[in-house]
């Protein structure tokens, strides 16, 4: 068996689901998108076009839950990195979208993040074993704003062979991203089979779908690109000030986005990616807290056990501004919870300051923590070999197991530190008495000096460049208009 963490009883989940249906039918969902409202109306929802509020009946929700896929494929530029989100295992990734600041890995100063930082970040995630995919984490503050999104998308594709995750602010940006990915995999059909990237499209709590986000999501749905439906209800500001009331808002928003996406493209891949958050009640700011940890369990319960759909919950996230004990504590707790609930997408790698700041050293440290927690949730079978009765009989009381073939075969499965210090004081001192962040910084330097991912084949990359150039000029022109 595996160690596994759940929270709600079946009855409790059923109550939350029923309450969501009530909210959808009687309070409704606001969609500031005519396209979304029209689809809802055409399928039997009551729509008020003055307020943009749609009242979604139970049958639409049930049909959407019926037609949505129960597992999601994450394709990668290199097929050896393809995998399936099947609700059984957590997959770790880097965090955040367009994080504005970075702690400079050479000077230690916090500064604006630039396009070259994104290249470094993506390469490091490409190299580190526990990153199954790569979120396009950093903003490129040095580039004109209308082309930052598409540029980071292309940069990411060129610098990792793993699956990437990104976002689009509107349907136009979405179309260019799809066109580029189609070129790389060799066709729309192939892209549907092995989507090279996934997208997080946000919901505005409470109960509102933004025009740009939902229309981009529909565009992605049509192309078979997995959509992480993501709202961030906060108890007391954008949701009721109870944990359960906030779960209800989160769940209802997910169902609403699901209905729209499934009506637009039945069978479109979706992920339950609601991230209810804790808050600082002096400023309103979103923070890491025991409540945000608990929400991750609730989200995984609703997704996996109530709806049978993959989920995302925050992972290596922290409110700490630097790599201190607080960062280690929050990241460690949170990743462990994420692993224990088998959060299919477990982001956070490299993040600091509640997704406002980033650190390449943190990426390396988070990779280590991820390795630890994944060991924790491995499957441990109870059988003759693992019970090892024979070996125990052979060694007997008072002996030792060192000389056993069984030991030689099995000790390799035990966890081993990659950067944490597990030495004696004397040898730790001899090797420089380095704190962990210094060790991580050395690793960052080493990776950047030695690791180069396979580039996109030249002929295909030429075509990528052509679409990218076209996208840039169109997006710039649109921004000026």
């Amino acid at each position: 068996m595996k160690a596994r963490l759940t929270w709600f009883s079946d009855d409790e989940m059923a109550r939350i689901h029923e309450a969501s249906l009530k909210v959808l039918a009687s309070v409704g969902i606001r969609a500031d998108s005519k396209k979304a409202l029209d689809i809802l109306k055409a399928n039997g929802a009551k729509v008020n076009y003055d307020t943009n509020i749609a009242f979604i009946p139970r049958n639409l929700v049930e049909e959407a839950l019926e037609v949505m896929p129960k597992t999601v494929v994450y394709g990668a530029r290199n097929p050896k990195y393809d995998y399936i989100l099947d609700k059984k295992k957590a997959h770790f990734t880097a965090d955040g979208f367009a994080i504005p600041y970075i702690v400079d890995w050479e000077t230690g100063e916090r500064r604006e993040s630039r396009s070259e930082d994104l290249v470094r970040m993506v390469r490091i995630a490409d190299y580190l074993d526990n990153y199954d995919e790569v979120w396009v984490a950093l903003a490129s503050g040095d580039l004109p704003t209308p082309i930052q999104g598409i540029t980071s998308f292309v940069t990411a594709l060129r610098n990792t062979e793993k699956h990437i995750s990104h976002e689009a602010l509107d349907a136009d940006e979405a179309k260019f991203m799809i066109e580029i990915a189609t070129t790389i995999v060799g066709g729309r059909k192939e892209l549907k089979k092995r989507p090279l990237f996934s997208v997080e499209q946000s919901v505005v709590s409470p109960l509102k779908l933004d025009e740009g986000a939902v229309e981009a999501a529909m565009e992605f749905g049509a192309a078979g690109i997995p959509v992480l439906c993501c709202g961030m209800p906060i108890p007391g500001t954008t949701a009721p000030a109870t944990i359960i009331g906030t779960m209800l808002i989160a769940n209802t928003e997910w169902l609403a986005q699901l209905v729209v996406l499934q009506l637009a493209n039945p069978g479109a891949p979706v992920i339950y990616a609601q991230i209810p958050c804790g808050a600082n009640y002096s400023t309103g700011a979103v923070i890491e807290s025991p409540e945000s940890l608990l929400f991750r369990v609730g989200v995984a319960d609703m997704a996996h056990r109530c709806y049978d759909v993959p989920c995302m919950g925050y992972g290596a996230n922290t409110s700490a501004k630097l790599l201190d004990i607080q960062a280690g504590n929050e990241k460690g707790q949170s990743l462990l919870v994420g692993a224990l609930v088998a959060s299919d997408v477990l982001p956070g790698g490299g993040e600091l300051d509640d997704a406002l700041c980033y650190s390449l050293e943190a990426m390396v440290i988070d990779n280590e923590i991820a390795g630890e927690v994944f060991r924790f949730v491995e499957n441990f079978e109870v059988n003759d070999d693992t019970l090892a009765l024979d070996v125990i009989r052979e060694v007997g009381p008072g002996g030792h197991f060192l000389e056993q073939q069984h030991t030689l075969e099995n000790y390799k499965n035990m966890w081993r530190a990659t950067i944490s210090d597990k030495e004696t004081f004397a040898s730790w001192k001899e090797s420089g008495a380095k704190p962990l962040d210094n060790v991580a910084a050395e690793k960052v330097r080493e990776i950047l000096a030695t690791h180069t991912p396979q580039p996109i084949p030249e002929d295909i990359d030429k075509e990528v460049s052509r679409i990218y150039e076209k996208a840039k000029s169109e997006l710039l022109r649109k921004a000026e208009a």
Partner: protein
Amino acid sequence: MLDLVEIRDSVINGARNEVRDLVEKAVGEGGDAQKILNEGLVAAINVVGDKFEKGEFFLPELVMSAAAMREGLKILRPLLEQGNVKLFKVAVIGTVRGDIHDIGKSIVGIMLEGAGFSVIDLGVDVETDRFIEAIRQNNADLLGMSALLTTTMENMRGVIGALKKAGLNIKTMVGGAPLTEQFANEIGADGYAPNAASAVRKASELVKG
């Protein structure tokens, strides 16, 4: 006799219906509106502010008191604002074009109201023209802009430029998680604040002189 203590306590407790009833009664009994405002509502809000600074009160208490104050003001305003005299400073606020983050901006708005500003909240994704129009229409004293995306922060610079071009002499204040004081200076904003409490302090400072 005018019971200002009770009015003050009701505002501190965030009991908006009570505040409405008490202020109505006080006015009905011939109480001086200016005195009710200063020694009842404003005095209460000062206490609430102090408690917030000391960590005894948090946002929810602050917001409830602000809402209670608003109820009282509704009754007092027509009595105090006779003719064209503007009793309260007017603040126009909004999240800039391309940006839909609104929690921080809304909290700042509520707190400004609590501090006695008339607040016109234009919502999110606000175009430059709409800021200018609202400022003109309401003869505003202060513009507060919010942005949470590095890609939309730049739009603030555009608005400030447009204000100058339009010849509008208004104080500007900016905020939002990715912003810094340095950025605010760079784009020519008059003020910056990292959170709602300091936003109120900054705003009062800016419109004073």
